[in-house]
């Protein structure tokens, strides 16, 4: 089991990814070859979907800035969560080596900062969708 803890089969992962990419591309070409092209090739057909009226959109559609804010907040919090992983994996080892109390307290400080961040985020209405 010790060798399993560090194994990282890069070769297998790359092999599988390349295999799927080739398989998927092959499927798309196969569907293209079998499906063929219909005679009707009018501009109305080649337009994107719109319900009942001629297409209205431009390429550079405007979207709510809210999504960017969500993405930024996600990155901040995700990094904080990733910091918890190495702590979580070695917490029991720290306890058995007598280091439990300082490690628990230091993580408590980190979690307090995390909770303050979450509280501030909710208070500043960064998560309101209206």
């Amino acid at each position, binding site marked *: 089991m010790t060798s399993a803890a560090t194994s990282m*089969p890069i070769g297998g992962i790359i092999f599988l990814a390349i295999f799927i990419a080739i398989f998927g591309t092959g499927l798309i070409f196969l569907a293209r070859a079998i499906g063929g092209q219909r005679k009707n090739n009018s501009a109305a057909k080649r337009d*994107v979907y719109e319900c009942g009226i001629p297409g209205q959109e431009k390429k550079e559609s405007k979207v709510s800035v809210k999504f960017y804010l969500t993405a930024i907040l996600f990155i901040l919090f995700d990094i904080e969560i990733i910091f918890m992983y190495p702590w*979580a994996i070695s917490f029991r080892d720290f306890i058995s080596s007598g280091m439990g109390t300082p490690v628990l307290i230091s993580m408590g400080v980190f979690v307090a900062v995390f909770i303050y961040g979450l509280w501030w985020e909710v208070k500043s209405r960064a998560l309101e969708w209206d």
Partner: protein
Amino acid sequence: MGQDILEITINSVKLILIFLMMVQAVPILVWLERRGSAFIQNRFGPNRVGPLGLVQLLADAVKFLTKEDFAPDKAVRSLFYAAPVFALIPATLAYAAIPMSTPISIAAFEAFGSTWGPYLFRVQGYEIGVGIVFILGVSSLAAYTILMAGWGSGSKFSLLGALRASAQVISYELALGLSIVGVIMMYGTFNLSEMIQAQQGPFQFSAFGYTIASTVDWIPNWGIFYQPIGFILFFAAAFAESNRLPFDLAEGEAELVAGFHTEYGGFKMLMFFIGEYGHMMIAAGLATTFFFGGYGIPGITAQELQQVIVGWGYADQTANILNAVLHFLMYNVKFAIFLWIFIHVRWTLPRFRYDQLMDLGWKTMLPWALANTILTAIVIYVVAA
């Protein structure tokens, strides 16, 4: 991937088999979903093509193949065509890292004038030391697929659907990632095989220097008994991650037509489907592994079962393979139960509104996951003291 040509070949075939298994599981799941929804809604569902309508999905695949390949004028064609192919990759890469049965060991043997082996084949695509981190990392690449499809289609419905879907996926990833910190703390490992090892045998744990064990053998030592809150949070977040109802805001038909795959049809659409069902399978496999003992059979450990099979009069080698087959069946039973829960929930609950969805993820599940982490840490600390 291995030491010699035989091992490399078998490992490569194994990877391809896992991919094909995922692809062929999708028609079965779609059939189950359609028949199951019909059963729930007191309808018949597909029942004309073949026995119980089982061949329906084969007919659908032929129909998909004969559809005209189409891309709108406004589409960014490279992204539009690449997105469905990339939709397959994250789901499969992550699923291949989940162990599905006990490893099969093959003793050394003579063939073609040289000695081969000994080998240890795992019933999974590849064994990864940091399994959880890898699976979370790879499966979250699906957000890029969604954005590629949405932006590449050049349609406002697709773009809005893609933005919604990716915002939802990344928001619930926080709750998902945090809900398994407690699990990691429990087992002290990132490796999925070691987690399953830790869940073998009857229910027992030590606290304050005493060992508390169940009096009956068949109550297993599963993670769900230690991390019930973690399980609920994980499973709910997994629904959102795989864009399933009640969290399928990405394709809210009433407002967004069909979300990020509005402009897709035929085989490209089918490939998105495979990706979506693939994420469902990852969620089911991970829930099984973290909380329900993986391939472990309740009441008997892998070593004990090996002894029992040897007792039936089989050689060690054959017993090892039979053991792996039995564990593989057990894994699939648990896996299938979770997949059915996915389908059942889809046809039971209505959809959330978008702001409610985000509130649930950020303001409810994230604090609860944090509370679960703190609680687990304190309990482990107090109990071990």
